């Protein structure tokens, strides 16, 4: 009896592991969008996949294929539909919908709001969330297909940028991580034509003998090396 129970536990363990890997693959194939930015169809597919995976996971009387097949079918449909939306604008409009303009040239589009069942409280809430509490400051407010509101303030109300003040700015690229968690990122080093030896020499100038003592190091486009030691290495010093 005990042996029999162990078998069932092993079967559940195997099924859970298998379906977990399948769900991870499914979500990876679906793309890199965050949950909050999912299109309506993607959100539905994500919920369906999780539901489909959980049933055969716990119910050993249901063949695993009854869970795998619908998940694989959903992945296939998701790929096919995303390919069609990529190629055809009409398909894109039919599946993902189109953005709706709620404030147009500073004027609230009452009809559009009614059509979307979007009330004034919802609009004000979204404007506040977008750092635009005064509706008079808004030039455009667009409800995106993901359900998020994009707010474009009037030109007079936009924050001042360097160009407005005719100030020349230097190029600021992206700082490149050279060490993360004590491990040298050789790919990034070779990308900027530098070597591990160079990194060791540079760190040596700051009295760091072992690269493994560094928690994080990065190099910006001006050539400034930033580093932070691991807690253990700091206490040693």
């Amino acid at each position, binding site marked *: 009896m005990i042996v029999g129970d162990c078998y069932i536990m092993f079967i559940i363990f195997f099924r859970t592991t298998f379906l977990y890997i399948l769900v991870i693959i499914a979500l990876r*194939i679906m793309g890199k969008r965050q949950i909050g930015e999912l299109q309506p169809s993607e959100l539905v597919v994500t919920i369906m996949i999780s539901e489909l995976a959980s049933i055969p996971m716990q119910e*050993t*009387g*249901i*063949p*695993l*294929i*009854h869970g795998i*097949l619908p998940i*694989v*079918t959903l*992945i*296939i449909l998701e*790929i*096919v539909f995303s*390919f069609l939306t990529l190629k055809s604008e009409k398909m894109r409009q039919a599946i993902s919908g189109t953005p709706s303009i709620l404030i147009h040239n500073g004027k609230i589009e009452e009809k559009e709001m009614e059509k979307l069942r979007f009330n004034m409280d919802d609009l004000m809430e979204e404007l506040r969330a977008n750092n635009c509490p005064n509706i008079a400051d808004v030039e455009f407010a667009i409800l995106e297909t993901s359900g998020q509101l994009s707010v474009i303030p009037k030109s007079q109300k936009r924050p001042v940028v360097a160009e407005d003040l005719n100030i020349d700015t230097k190029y600021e690229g992206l700082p490149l991580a050279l060490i993360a968690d004590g491990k040298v990122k050789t790919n990034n080093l070779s990308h900027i034509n530098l070597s591990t030896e160079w990194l060791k020499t540079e760190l040596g100038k700051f009295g760091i003998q072992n690269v493994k003592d560094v928690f994080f190091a990065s190099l910006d486009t001006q050539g400034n090396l930033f580093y932070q030691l691991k807690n253990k290495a700091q206490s040693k010093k």
Partner: protein
Amino acid sequence: MKTFIIAIILLTIIVIGSLAYIYFVNYVTDPMLSELKDLDNTVLAGDWPKAQTQVALLQQRWDKKEGWMKAFIGHAELDQIQITLSRMRQYINFEDTKDFMNESSVLKLLLQSIVEKEKVSLSNLF
């Protein structure tokens, strides 16, 4: 484009696999139904030793294919077939024609229902 082609290939595999599976279910159940009919006739004729051999063969055939069937069909239905076969064996051992015929009818229904459930029909789709 590469992912799209892979998706289409997978879709084709699923369609072909489904058709092959329907063929496999028929391949298992059709001979069993035919053997069951012969077994009914043997029992009705009162030839119990022959009936014992036939039911053993039926059980053997089922045991061979059940492993594969479990990968595709709900286990509760397959367990029910095993229970029915076991009962049939006992009714033959005790030479009980009436109860054997009842169980034989249940087994036929179970085998037919497996085939019916796998058919691509409007009633199954909706």
